């Protein structure tokens, strides 16, 4: 597992292990999509410290949820070196066919409303700020829906504290 120097220097990075696998947490990459704790609160509980409890579920369950993290703020690897190499090889083989798909510009941007959370944007898009200037050209971000973010228009995870709900 290669980690760039800038990533190593990032504050708040944490690694968690249950002996079998290690889950890497890179908070700078998180867009608060909330997938992890909605699907596996027994392991990923932002109200607890440490917020990751590797004993909360089986290795298979943890892998399944970490693989759903849209930003790779959460990643995992097998601790056993042989197993890790084998898995990485498999992953490359599986992901190759998808790369030959239609050009990226043609793909519609995925806009996903996260339950009681932000708007997740995935694809090639532009964001024009309230002052008419372009904010960022990105491939993934999340926009605040609760009205309380201090990094508006982006989500900063504040919706949890304010108990924002879709049905209210």
């Amino acid at each position: 597992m290669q980690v760039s120097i800038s990533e190593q220097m990032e504050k708040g990075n944490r690694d968690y292990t249950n002996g079998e696998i290690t889950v890497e947490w890179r908070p700078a990459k998180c867009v608060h999509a909330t997938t992890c704790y909605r699907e596996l609160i027994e392991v990923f509980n932002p109200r607890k410290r440490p917020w990751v409890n590797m004993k909360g579920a089986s290795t298979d369950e943890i892998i399944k949820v970490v693989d759903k993290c849209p930003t790779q703020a959460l990643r995992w690897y097998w601790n056993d070196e042989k197993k890790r190499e084998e898995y990485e090889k498999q992953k490359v083989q599986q992901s190759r066919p998808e790369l030959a798909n239609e050009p990226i510009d043609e793909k519609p941007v995925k806009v996903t409303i996260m339950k009681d959370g932000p708007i997740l944007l995935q694809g090639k898009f532009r964001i024009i700020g309230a002052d008419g200037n372009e904010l960022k050209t990105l491939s993934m971000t999340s926009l605040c829906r609760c009205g309380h973010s201090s990094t508006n228009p982006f989500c900063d995870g504040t919706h949890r504290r304010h108990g924002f709900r879709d049905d209210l």
Partner: protein
Amino acid sequence: MSAEFTIIKNGPVKITGKFVLTGSDGKHLSVEGEEVHLCRCGGSKNKPFCDGSHQSNGFKG
């Protein structure tokens, strides 16, 4: 560029271009290419869409 997101001052976000919108229940919400305004103030009674509530709740952002 397939979609553009325009932040409307003290209001919603307007989405134009090519996009697929999925609701919090995983269901598809709009067809490709439609223009939508999504609530940013948290006050809409028609979430995730804007219903103009930001004008009455004093949303700034």
